[in-house]
């Protein structure tokens, strides 16, 4: 009998229990470990209770999994009021037997301890609550209160370990909140080792703005995102970002969309940008970044596409007024509902809130084109890496929806233009650089394409002129002292024109001279010919005369002879007469 080959049995991973919380299920690739305890730790005010409550509420409402909420801190009434602002109606869920809130008050002052004890009372109460509604989910909030209520931490620690095992044996998906402190996940330790999954919430202040972070510290038997993810508490509960997948799986469109500036389209292989790509427009102050963006938006609306304009420096009205000065009328699009503005100061709230607002807007409005003007302003809210990760998430969001996005970026005048301030240029598909050239006492603008992935593009610098009819791109002149722009370009153009005219004149006078010379020559020839003719004629006359004279004597003699001969007679005759 042949030996059985060793069979590699691929068991399906552990079953997961979706939380229903936006983003969290993506990070954990499906939710919390089903039927196992998860520890949720964090400092005070970081959102533990809200996350835990949302886990139960969504479980009851979306996944038909009843839940038990055992709270040691807030009464059920307080809790209901606190989460009502997020649209969670705890009393209604309780009435439908989808939720059971058990408030356990632990009052250290009224309990005296004597000898050994255990938390069996808690187990009993929990079990009766689980059985009462057939709960699949359990939340204990928070175990720190237990530690505060009992003096013997050793007993409590042992009892908590027993509690985790017990919850596992009950096959409920449990979320136990714990307070972290002193650089440890939990104040009293050991809980994090017993839990199958540990999620850490963090609420920190950086540069006077608050940032909430969520991190999956451990997750037994499953893959999970290990980064810190920003999250926020909004009107609809917790939102964990990323809002899209962790993978790079964007579709790549081959459709092209014009930039709104014909000459720029020509520089981009004649067709403009690819749809669903991200474009960075960077430049110093006043180089015309917003104008390029306005053209882009204007062109999109002209095609009948929806555009979202996020202004972080100007209000919507200011943008409209300012763009009208270069002949771009944005207000008709606004009234027709094709254009929407989102104007907010970056400092008004944290990056995460902005990110979620943008996400909500994009989801609701479904724009084809998005402009963020400028992205660099967000650097005032978060650190370099925060902003970078925000941009990454934005790109992720836009690309996954095939939205063409244009980001303007203010580069400090002293820095190299090629250096992107927030380090996002590598993530961009196209990069237009607007530059200022200062010479002859004036500043002029130039535009060139630093990169444009996947298409042939011009390597030429174009002069960028803001006219009453929008942006115009002109060729630049290369003079002996470099690029010539503005009045230097105009002067150069004039000089060139004059030169051409002079050349023309020179040519004309040469032609004239030649003509005159020819005329002179011809006149001379004519005169000489006439002189010659005169001379010839006189010469001929003389010759004839000479010839005549030469023949005369002979003739005369003959005549004379003749005359004489005949004359005798005639003379005779005559004489006779």
């Amino acid at each position, binding site marked *: 009998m042949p030996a059985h080959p060793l069979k590699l049995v691929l068991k399906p991973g552990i079953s997961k229990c979706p939380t229903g919380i936006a983003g969290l299920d993506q990070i954990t690739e499906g939710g919390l470990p089903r039927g196992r305890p998860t520890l949720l730790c964090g400092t005070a005010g970081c959102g533990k209770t809200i996350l835990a409550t949302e886990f139960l509420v969504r479980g009851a409402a979306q996944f038909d999994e009843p839940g038990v909420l055992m709270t040691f801190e807030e009464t059920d009434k307080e809790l209901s009021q606190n989460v009502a602002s997020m649209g969670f109606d705890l009393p209604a869920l309780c009435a439908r037997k989808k939720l059971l809130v058990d408030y356990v008050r632990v009052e250290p002052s*009224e*309990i005296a301890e*004597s*000898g050994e*004890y*255990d938390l069996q*009372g808690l187990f*009993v109460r929990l079990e009766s609550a689980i059985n009462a509604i057939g709960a699949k989910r359990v939340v204990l909030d928070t175990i720190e209160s237990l530690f505060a209520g009992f003096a013997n931490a050793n007993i409590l620690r042992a009892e908590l370990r027993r509690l985790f095992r017990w919850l596992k044996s009950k096959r409920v998906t449990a979320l136990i909140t714990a307070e972290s402190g002193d650089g440890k996940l939990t104040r009293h330790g050991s809980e994090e080792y017993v839990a199958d999954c540990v999620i850490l919430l963090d609420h920190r202040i950086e540069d006077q703005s608050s940032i909430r972070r969520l991190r999956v510290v451990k997750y037994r038997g499953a893959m999970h995102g290990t980064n810190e993810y920003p999250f926020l508490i909004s009107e609809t509960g917790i939102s964990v970002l990323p809002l899209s997948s962790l993978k790079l799986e964007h579709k790549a469109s081959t459709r092209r969309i014009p930039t709104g500036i014909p000459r720029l389209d020509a520089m981009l292989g004649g067709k403009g940008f690819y749809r669903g790509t991200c474009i960075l427009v960077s430049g110093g102050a006043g180089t015309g970044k917003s104008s390029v963006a306005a053209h882009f938006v204007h062109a999109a609306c002209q095609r009948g596409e929806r555009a979202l304009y996020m202004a972080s420096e100007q209000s919507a009205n200011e943008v409209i007024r300012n763009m009208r000065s270069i002949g771009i009328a944005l207000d008709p699009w606004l009234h027709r509902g094709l254009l929407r503005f989102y104007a907010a100061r970056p400092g008004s709230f944290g990056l995460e809130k902005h990110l979620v607002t943008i996400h909500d807007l994009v989801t609701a409005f479904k724009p084809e084109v998005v402009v963020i003007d400028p992205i660099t302003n967000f650097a005032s809210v978060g650190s370099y890496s925060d902003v970078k990760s925000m941009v990454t998430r934005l790109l992720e969001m836009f690309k996954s929806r095939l939205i063409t996005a244009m980001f303007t970026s203010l580069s400090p005048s002293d820095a190299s233009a090629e250096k992107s301030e927030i380090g996002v240029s590598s993530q961009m598909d196209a990069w237009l650089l607007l530059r200022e050239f200062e010479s002859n006492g004036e500043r002029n603008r130039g535009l060139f394409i630093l990169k444009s992935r996947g298409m042939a593009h011009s390597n030429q610098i174009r002069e960028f002129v803001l006219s009453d009819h929008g942006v115009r791109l002109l060729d630049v002149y290369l003079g002996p002292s470099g690029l010539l722009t503005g009045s230097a370009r105009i002067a150069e153009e004039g000089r060139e024109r004059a030169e051409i005219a002079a050349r023309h004149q020179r040519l004309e006078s040469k032609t004239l001279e030649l003509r005159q010379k020819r005329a002179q020559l011809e006149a001379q020839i004519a005169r000489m010919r006439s002189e010659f003719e005169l001379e010839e004629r006189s010469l001929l006359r003389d010759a004839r005369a000479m010839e005549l004279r030469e023949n005369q004597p002979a003739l005369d003699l003959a005549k004379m002879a003749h005359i004489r001969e005949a004359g005798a007679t005639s003379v005779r005759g005559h004489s006779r007469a």
Partner: protein
Amino acid sequence: MKRTTPHNDNCQQHPGPAVRNLCLFSASETAPSIAAPGSLQSPCEQHLAGKHLLEALALINNPRLAAADRIISLPNWLRRLPPPMKKTIGDSTNTQPLAGALDLLHGKLPE
């Protein structure tokens, strides 16, 4: 003195005006609970002969009562009378502190 047996829910027997009304919540599964019931028997009998009521409740059968009295740890002694209510947890292998905590000795009759 009347003493109900542990895990008997029915503790409605009132032996006249009780000076002390004590209640013991316990569970059958865990060691401290099993050890608890006997621990107060002798101090009570010694100091409060006939003037106390000692109930013993199995929590598993009375989750609602436990919720009302906010019981989470076992064994849990409750002195309902006289007020204020006093709560002591622990198996009370050392009876003296327990009796002190529940103010049993205070009612000791002068010898």
